C-alpha cells in the first residue's frame, strides 16, 4: 500500500466538480495543499416540543465554522464537552447533513476541491471510502457478536471488493500494520484489551485506504501506558500512508504532541485557530488562555497559583448574545454583549474571534 496506490484508488469518485474559481470565491484563503475544508459550516439540531411536537428551538451545535486541513497534517479540535467538536467532525465527513455551509474534499484525479456538501447515493458511498472515523470507546463501537476479522472486512464488502481472497489478504495486511496478529481473525472483541480493541477500530477505518481520518477522542479512554502506544501507532500510520487527521481530544497535552494546527471551539463557534507552536506559546483568545491555564502539568515544582475561569459552559440551546464566551470572560467589554466578534487573521494562519483584536 503506497501513497500512490491510495490516491489512484480513490480517484474514481464522480461528483459534480466546481471550478477552482468557485472555490476561491467561496473559501478565499484555501491552500493549494489543502485536503479537506469547510466554509461557514452550520449544524443545528431541532428540538421538538409542545402538544403538536412542533419545532420550538434549535441546538446550535456548530455555528459558522471555517477551517481547512492540509494533506498529511493533523488538525485538532479542542474544547469542553458540548462545544461541538464531534458534531463538527461528523458533519465534515457527512455522517450528519449540514444545516448550511460548504464542505470541500480534494479529488486527486482532477486536483480540484470538490464540494461534497450535497453528495448523494453512489457518490456519497464513494466518499465514505475516503473519509473514515475512529471512535472513542473501542468496546462500544465494535459488534460483540462478530469476529474481528469480519468487522474489519465489512467495509470491503460494502465497497464492492468482490474477491474473497483479496478481502482476506487486505484484512490480514492491515491487521499486521496496526500490530494485531493474523491469528486473531476469528476472535471476538471481548477477548481483547482496550488498546487492542482500539487497534481493531483503527484497522477497520484504514482497510479502505482512506486519506482522511477523524479520530474522535480515539486515545481518551485508554490507560496511560497504552495511550502512548496508540498515539505512536497513529503517527506511524500517518507517515506511512500520508494520512490527514482531524483529531478531537480534550487532553491538551496529547493535542500538543499530535497536531500541526489547532482549532479551539466554544459553544459551537471556532474562537481561535493557529499552528501548534503559536497556539501553545502565544494563546490569544481569553478562552484559549483559560483552557491552557487549567491543564494540570505533571511537574510538582511549577507554580500552582493559576488564574482559573469560573462558571460552566452555557446551554447551546440559548447561547449568550454577542460573544458566547462573554459570561465567563475575564476581559469582557460592553461591545461583547451586543456584537458577535468577527473572525480576524491577526498573523498568517492565526485566526481569532474576539473584540480585543
Amino acid at each position: 500500500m503506497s501513497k500512490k496506490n491510495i490516491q489512484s484508488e480513490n480517484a474514481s469518485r464522480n461528483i459534480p466538480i466546481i471550478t477552482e474559481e468557485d472555490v476561491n470565491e467561496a473559501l478565499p484563503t484555501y491552500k493549494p495543499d489543502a485536503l479537506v475544508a469547510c466554509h461557514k459550516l452550520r449544524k443545528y439540531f431541532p428540538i421538538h416540543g409542545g402538544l403538536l411536537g412542533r419545532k420550538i428551538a434549535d441546538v446550535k451545535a456548530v455555528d459558522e465554522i471555517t477551517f481547512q486541513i492540509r494533506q498529511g497534517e493533523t488538525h485538532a479540535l479542542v474544547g469542553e464537552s458540548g462545544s461541538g467538536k464531534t458534531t463538527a467532525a461528523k458533519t465534515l465527513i457527512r455522517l450528519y447533513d449540514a444545516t448550511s455551509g460548504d464542505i470541500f474534499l480534494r479529488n486527486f484525479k482532477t486536483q480540484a476541491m470538490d464540494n461534497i456538501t450535497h453528495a448523494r447515493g453512489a457518490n456519497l458511498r464513494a466518499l465514505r471510502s475516503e473519509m473514515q472515523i475512529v471512535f472513542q470507546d473501542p468496546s462500544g463501537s465494535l459488534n460483540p457478536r462478530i469476529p474481528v476479522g469480519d468487522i474489519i472486512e465489512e467495509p470491503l464488502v460494502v465497497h464492492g471488493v468482490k474477491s474473497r481472497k483479496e478481502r482476506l489478504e487486505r484484512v490480514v495486511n492491515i491487521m499486521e500494520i496496526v500490530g494485531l496478529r493474523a491469528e486473531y481473525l476469528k476472535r471476538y472483541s471481548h477477548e481483547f484489551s482496550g488498546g487492542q480493541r482500539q487497534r481493531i477500530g483503527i484497522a477497520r477505518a484504514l482497510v479502505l485506504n482512506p486519506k482522511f481520518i477523524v479520530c474522535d477522542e480515539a486515545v481518551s479512554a485508554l490507560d496511560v501506558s497504552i495511550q502512548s502506544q496508540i498515539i505512536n501507532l497513529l503517527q506511524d500510520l500517518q507517515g506511512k500512508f500520508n494520512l490527514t487527521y482531524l483529531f478531537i481530544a480534550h487532553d491538551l497535552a496529547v493535542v500538543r504532541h499530535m497536531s500541526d494546527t489547532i482549532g479551539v471551539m466554544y459553544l459551537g463557534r471556532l474562537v481561535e485557530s493557529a499552528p501548534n507552536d503559536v497556539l501553545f506559546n502565544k494563546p490569544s483568545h481569553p478562552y484559549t488562555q483559560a483552557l491552557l491555564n487549567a491543564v494540570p502539568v505533571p511537574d510538582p515544582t511549577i507554580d500552582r497559583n493559576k488564574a482559573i475561569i469560573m462558571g460552566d459552559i452555557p446551554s447551546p440551546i440559548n447561547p449568550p448574545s454577542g460573544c458566547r464566551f462573554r459570561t465567563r470572560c475575564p476581559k469582557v467589554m460592553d461591545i461583547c454583549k451586543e456584537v458577535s466578534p468577527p473572525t480576524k487573521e491577526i498573523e498568517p494562519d492565526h485566526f481569532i474571534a474576539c473584540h480585543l483584536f
Partner: protein
Amino acid sequence: MALLEVKNLHTYFHTMDGLTKSVEGVSFSVDKGVTLGLVGESGCGKSVTSLSIMQLLACPPGEIHQGEILFQGDDLLKKTPDQMRRIRGNDISMIFQEPMTSLNPVFTVGNQIMEVLMIHKGMTEHEAKEKTISLFQDVGIPDPARRVDNYPHQMSGGMRQRVMIAMGLACDPKLLIADEPTTALDVTIQAQVLQLMRDIKKKTNTSIILITHNLAVVAEMADFIAVMYYGRLVEYAEVRDLYGNPKHPYTHGLLNSIPRVDKPKTAEALPAIPGVVPNPYNAPSGCKFHPRCKYAQRKCVDEEPPYVLLPGSDSHYCRCWFPVQD
C-alpha cells in the same frame, strides 16, 4: 501516630473464572493533613484498596484475606458492621468519580446531605438544612439557599461534583478518600474542583487519599505519591522526589511516555512502555512488571523483589531489584 495505617493488605475476589488477587501486600500510612496520591492504571487495585479501607466491598465475592487497617490506632477490620457504619461518612468519607450515579435522582441534593448530618450528628431537620446551605457556600455553589432544593439532574457535572464534595465534608471527616474525583469533568471545571479541594485542605487540615490515573493531577495535589501495579505498591515517595527521581522502571516509563502540555512538539515517537498489564488470572513469575521492563534480568523473572526503603532515603520506597539510576 499516623492517622491511617494500612499494613500488608491482601484483598481477593473469588470469581467464576478463579481467584483474583486484586490487592497483594499493600502497606502505607497517611499522616494528618497530608494528601496521598494513589496512582496506577485500571485494574491495578487502587480502587479496591480504598474500598477495603471503607469496607464497601461486596463479600462474597470479595474477601479481605489478610492485613490490618489502623485508623487512629484501631483496626477497622475488627469493627462490627454497626461500628463501621458510624465511621463511614463521619470520620472517613468518600467522593466517587461519577456524581450522577452516586447521587440519588429522586431526592433533592439538599436532602441527601441533610440525611448524613441528621444520622451522624443528630441534627434536627432545620439545623441540617442551615448547615447544608453553609456547606454549599463553602464549596462554591452559587445561590446555595435555592440550590439545596435542586434534584441532581438540574445541576451541571461540576456542580454535582461540588455537591459530592460538600457531602463528603459534611461531618468534618478526618480522612477524605477521593476516587477519580475529576476524571469525568472538563478541564476548566477540573481546575475549579482541584482548587476547591486544595482550599478545603488548607482550611480544615483534612487528610486526603486521592485516587487517580492522571499523573498531572496528582502532581498538583499530592504531598506523597504511591504507584500501584498489578495489585502491588511498586513505588512510594514524596511528590518532588517521585517526579524528579523516579526509581521504579514502571514509574520512570510512565513519566517519560506521557505527552506534555508544557513541552513543544517533537518529531520523535513517545517512549511508550511496551505490552499490556498481565491477565489477573495468570500472573507472571517473579517481578510482575518484568515482561514489560526494559531493564529486566534473570533475577527479575525468578524472584519477586521486596518493597523496601531505598538506601540513603527516609521516605522513598521501591519494589525493584535494579532501581533506575540517574
